[in-house]
């Protein structure tokens, strides 16, 4: 009659196995988050985090894209879940009705975005009648408008060629443009070709923000993974400070520059730390709202926007508490 305890134990064991199986099956791992980013010094900590193993490839897959236009487009058409884009791009996406959330302010351009001119152009007003190459993203137009405002030159006085930043160097080299509105690393490459910076984002501080944004549906379903990305982001920023040489080597290699260019690259951007980020995206009135409104107004004025966009709708202040 020993069979009864054995049978009873067997039934219990099989029950436990089934329950474990079902619970294990319900815990199906998600696909890695698809993060799209173009070449820009401010985004480099992302790649660095991956290369250093801070970001697990099973959780995050970074698509390295050659230009910012394809980054924005791939985010718009949901080829990516997360994207590193500028504030003006974010405002444009919001104005189009794209539901998104801002996770982190990756950097604030402080010279990284610039207007480069041939050596013979000495002052801003000299751009009149010149061929101007701009990046084919809202930022390009925004920078152009800011340049024309400051230079006091009319749009009709110049010839504009929008293109991906990847093509600007060759365009300039081929003599097809006298003025190039671009950003790093093209800026450094053009400088090496003899071009001079006549205007840059340090002259319009707190206007060009680079953000890590995510689609709303992904935000709602993968908050933990997103939080992990931001946490690793700040960890990598610290690594770059602590391991300057290694970071310089890795970043410049990826961007196709010399190691000596590294400090110049970083000079053109300000990378907010955790504390600054919490001020920009957290609290009762996130600090990013004001520059957002200002930028939005400028964009309306420049006819890039039809209505004012409230950046606040893309901010979940509670998210800052996770990092």
């Amino acid at each position: 009659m020993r069979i009864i305890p054995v049978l009873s134990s067997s039934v219990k064991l099989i029950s436990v196995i089934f329950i474990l199986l079902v619970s294990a099956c319900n815990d199906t791992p998600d696909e890695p988050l698809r993060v799209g980013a173009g070449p820009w010094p401010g985004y480099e900590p992302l790649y660095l985090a991956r290369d250093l193993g801070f970001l697990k490839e099973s959780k995050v897959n970074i698509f390295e894209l050659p230009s910012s236009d394809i980054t924005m487009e791939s985010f718009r058409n949901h080829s990516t879940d997360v994207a590193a884009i500028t504030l003006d791009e974010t405002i444009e996406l919001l104005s189009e009705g794209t539901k998104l959330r801002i996770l982190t302010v990756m950097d604030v351009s402080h010279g990284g975005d610039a207007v480069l001119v041939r050596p013979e152009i000495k002052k801003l007003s000299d751009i009149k009648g010149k061929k101007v190459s701009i990046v084919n993203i809202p930022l390009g137009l925004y920078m152009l408008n800011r340049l024309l405002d400051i230079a006091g030159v009319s749009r009709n006085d110049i010839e504009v060629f929008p293109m991906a930043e990847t093509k600007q160097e060759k365009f300039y080299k081929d003599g097809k443009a006298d003025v190039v509105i671009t950003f790093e690393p093209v800026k450094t490459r053009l400088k090496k070709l003899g071009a001079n910076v006549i205007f840059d984002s340090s002259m319009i501080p707190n206007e060009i923000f680079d953000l890590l944004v995510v689609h709303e549906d992904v935000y709602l379903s993968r908050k933990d993974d997103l939080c992990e990305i931001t946490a690793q982001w700040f960890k990598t920023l610290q690594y770059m400070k602590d391991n300057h040489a290694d970071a310089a080597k890795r970043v410049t290699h990826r961007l196709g520059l010399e190691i000596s260019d590294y400090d110049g690259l970083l000079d053109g951007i300000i990378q907010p730390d955790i504390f600054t980020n919490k001020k920009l995206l957290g609290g009762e009135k996130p600090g990013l709202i004001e520059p957002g409104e200002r930028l939005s107004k400028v964009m309306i004025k420049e006819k890039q926007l039809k209505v004012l966009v409230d950046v606040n709708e893309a901010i979940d202040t509670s998210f800052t508490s996770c990092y």
Partner: protein
Amino acid sequence: MRLRIVLIIPLVLVLLSTGFSLMFYFVTNGQAANIIRNQDLLKVKLDITRLQNILYSLLTEDATDLETARLNLSVTAMDNNIKKLLVTAENDVVLIANRYNWENLSANSISGYKNIEAKKIKLSNHQELIFADEEETLLIGYYPVVIKLENVEGFPIKQRGVLYIEYSMENKLLKAKRVALNQSATIGMVLFGVSFVIGLMLHMLVSRRLSKLTLVAKEISKGNLELKSNLRGNDELGALSSAFDEMIDRRKIAEKELRHVNENLEEIVEQRSDELEEKKQELLETQAHAHHASKMSALGEMAGGMAHEINSPLQAITLLTYKLKKANLSTSAEQRSEIANRIDETVYRISNIIESLRKMSRGSSSDPFEVAALKDIVDNVIGITKERYFIKGIILKIIYHDNSETVEAECQQTLIGQIIINLLNNAYDAVKELEEKWIKLEIFSDDEKVDFVVTDSGKGISEELREKIFDPMFTTKSIDEGTGLGLSLSLEIARKHNGSLTVDASSINTRFILSIPRFNKGT
């Protein structure tokens, strides 16, 4: 612990469901994995040949458009499953890659890329070389790409480069495995649930109710009839329960009746015992009376004979006394003495007859068993009866066989004598009116028993009568002649001596055989 039959069915179902789930898992997962591998192979071939075509267009122009090529490669690589996608020049240096930091490195430094495989593509006309790794989770592809690059002298020349891809199927296979696991677990859970429900139903409908019936049965076996099963339901167990409860009710009634009977039984037994005792007493008294009556009857029958028996000597004494009175001087003293002696002998003879009669009348069933000579028994009987036969002209023969005159037997001598008297009296009555009148008393003996056989000249006893003659109160004689108890009592005495009294049916004459053991303490 008892083996619960109701557990066997759900247990078998559980085991079957587990087995089925496992089989389902392996079959489904295997099929899904095959489909995934085939589909991914097709997808990779399609995507990469498309990219191959684009790259051909971009990289074979005089002004090689690496930037656009990189854009196309990067866009193609926007797939979580593409781990590596790169284009190498003829010298295996990476031109463009989905990770920009691989560019300008030797492809051999990138794990997975093997220049031996790449060489096969570059040197042969193979359109592609695509295969899965050992674990069959990764597709590795080498595709030829024509690239126009400047040589050391600055002249653009066409090279045969390689488009390398690593495509991981791991996630899809893992998902398929989990889906298969999920489905098989769900099926298993459902079947397990069904098994559980069946088990529960069997428990509720069979096991629990059977336990109740068992409990009631046990209580009944202990004598407790107060418990009832009272199972509800119209099924077989419900019917069994009803029958069971009905049986309990009936048994209760029967037990009640039995108790009642038991209570009265003692009284009845006591009453019957008293009655039986009374009857027994009556019977004993009747037997005693009958015995006495029989004995008296026998003695009465002998009385006639005895009158002659005593009368003849008395007449002889009278005659001798007369002779003695008339004796004179001529009568010698010797003659007188002879007369006196003859008177004396005659008196002695009378005395013997009286002694025999006394002995016969005195005997009873309470006499002790004593060793008695057969001859004494016979002599006592004959002493008091022989005269009757003589008077009637009946020839009485006493024949000892087997030297029986010297044999002794342990018996109640007087009662055995009474049987013989009874038999002789019956013989006397039977032959006294016949022309041929004889009675024969034969005595046989051996080491164990003694037979007294009384045969007369009668023609025997019919079969019909033989069956009745030993019955009490049965007689063929007139009321004056017999009581009907003689043979009945004789049989009883014979049985008391562990012996027998039978009619010899084989004899042409009437023949009774009294047989008793020689050594006897009676019953």
